[in-house]
């Protein structure tokens, strides 16, 4: 199908984009790579009256690399991360994740900011950036605010971003040399959205231990008991598996059926074993 009629503007600055959005927050949609939005528009699942194209704004393409973190502009593409054209704070995790997202033609255009803003329930970046303890900076008519990625998505396709705000950048703390990470995605045809997805990171240098699963009937889900055990060096598989079980039990609002529970357990255990191996 074809998209419905729409107006289009390409602001010259982020400030102008914010002004445009604030003028019509209900009718306007911000477009970056457009790899999800245009598909939804072609299917007539979305029909905004105005598109505000931000993908070429220099403010959103800026990359800074300082002592303890890398900051990526919201419009950095998945392919740029895959090819390590941007500095990698994650000791190989982010390029690895990027290389598994959809197809290369999509990765060439799709952006990290777009992925976080859409908050698709089976998307990789929301879980990975939550596990990396990254922070997202958003800009709106009332100024800037920073939010932890772990708290940014609130549900499937729902975030703390208001209708008048635009994601500006993402600050990702650098992992230390002693870090171990695991990343597992269960999906039948390669490159499609995951049936289950798990990322585990243990960085003794930063006292960071995180296990996050996604495609979990909502926002990315932190498995805190499991993370504490893995962080403490637990390698006993039965103990780890029972911690995963306890974490999944606690998320009773996700209403996992037996099959989903089994998939998430397998994904989480495999990711954890990549860390403990």
């Amino acid at each position: 199908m074809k998209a419905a009629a729409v107006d289009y503007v390409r602001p010259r600055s982020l400030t102008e984009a914010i002004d445009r959005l604030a003028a019509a927050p209900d009718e306007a949609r911000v477009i970056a790579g457009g790899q999800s939005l245009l598909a939804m528009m072609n299917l007539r699942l979305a029909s905004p009256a105005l598109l505000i194209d931000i993908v070429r704004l220099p403010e959103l393409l800026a990359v800074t690399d300082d002592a303890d973190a890398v900051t990526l502009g919201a419009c950095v593409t998945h392919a740029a991360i895959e090819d390590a054209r941007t500095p990698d704070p994650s000791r190989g995790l982010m390029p690895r994740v990027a290389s598994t997202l959809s197809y290369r033609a999509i990765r060439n255009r799709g952006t990290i900011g777009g992925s976080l803003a859409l908050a698709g329930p089976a998307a990789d970046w929301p879980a990975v950036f939550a596990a990396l303890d990254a922070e997202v900076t958003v800009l709106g008519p009332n100024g800037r605010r920073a939010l932890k990625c772990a708290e940014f998505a609130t549900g499937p396709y729902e975030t703390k971003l208001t209708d008048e705000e635009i994601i500006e950048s993402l600050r990702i703390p650098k992992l230390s040399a002693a870090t171990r990470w695991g990343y597992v995605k269960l999906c039948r045809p390669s490159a499609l959205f995951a049936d289950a997805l798990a990322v585990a990171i243990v960085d003794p240098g930063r006292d960071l231990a995180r296990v996050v699963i996604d495609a979990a009937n909502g926002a990315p889900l932190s498995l805190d008991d499991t993370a504490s055990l893995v962080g403490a060096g637990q390698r006993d598989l039965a103990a780890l598996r029972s911690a995963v079980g306890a974490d999944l039990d606690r998320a009773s609002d996700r209403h996992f059926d037996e099959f989903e529970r089994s998939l998430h357990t397998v994904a989480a255990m495999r990711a954890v074993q990549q860390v403990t191996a």
Partner: protein
Amino acid sequence: MTAVRLRLNGAVVADDVPPRMSLADFLRERRNLTGTHLGCEHGVCGACTVLVDGEPARSCLMLAVACDDREVRTIEGFAGDLVMEALRRSFHQCHGLQCGFCTPAMLITARDLILRRRAGSEHEIREGLAGNICRCTGYTNIVTAIAEAAKEIAKEASDGQ
């Protein structure tokens, strides 16, 4: 209508387009470049893949207006390209197409795989082609054709050194 000016297969073109017009429809209906095929129109089948600023992109998931000042290359724009010539010969020899609907995008995707050195094994080629659907299901010959072309290009590169 919004004015758009882009470099298309090496030549600058300017036009006024409705903002909702996809790059694919612009290419086919305004420029008569019908080698770009539209299958699903939501980014899944890969048949509409073209190069935007040198990189493969779905022309159904780009607006023509968003290509202002960009460089677009379609299957009609590869005359004299060594990798594309090798792929065309190889698709011919290995019977890498039946109906031909997916072929332009298969060629453009395969060229990108070879140039990024992601066509070194059958597994790598199959991974790289996951986003291009052939409804004749002729994948075996397509993969063989790409592997042969990649070998030829690698040989030419090493002979040339």
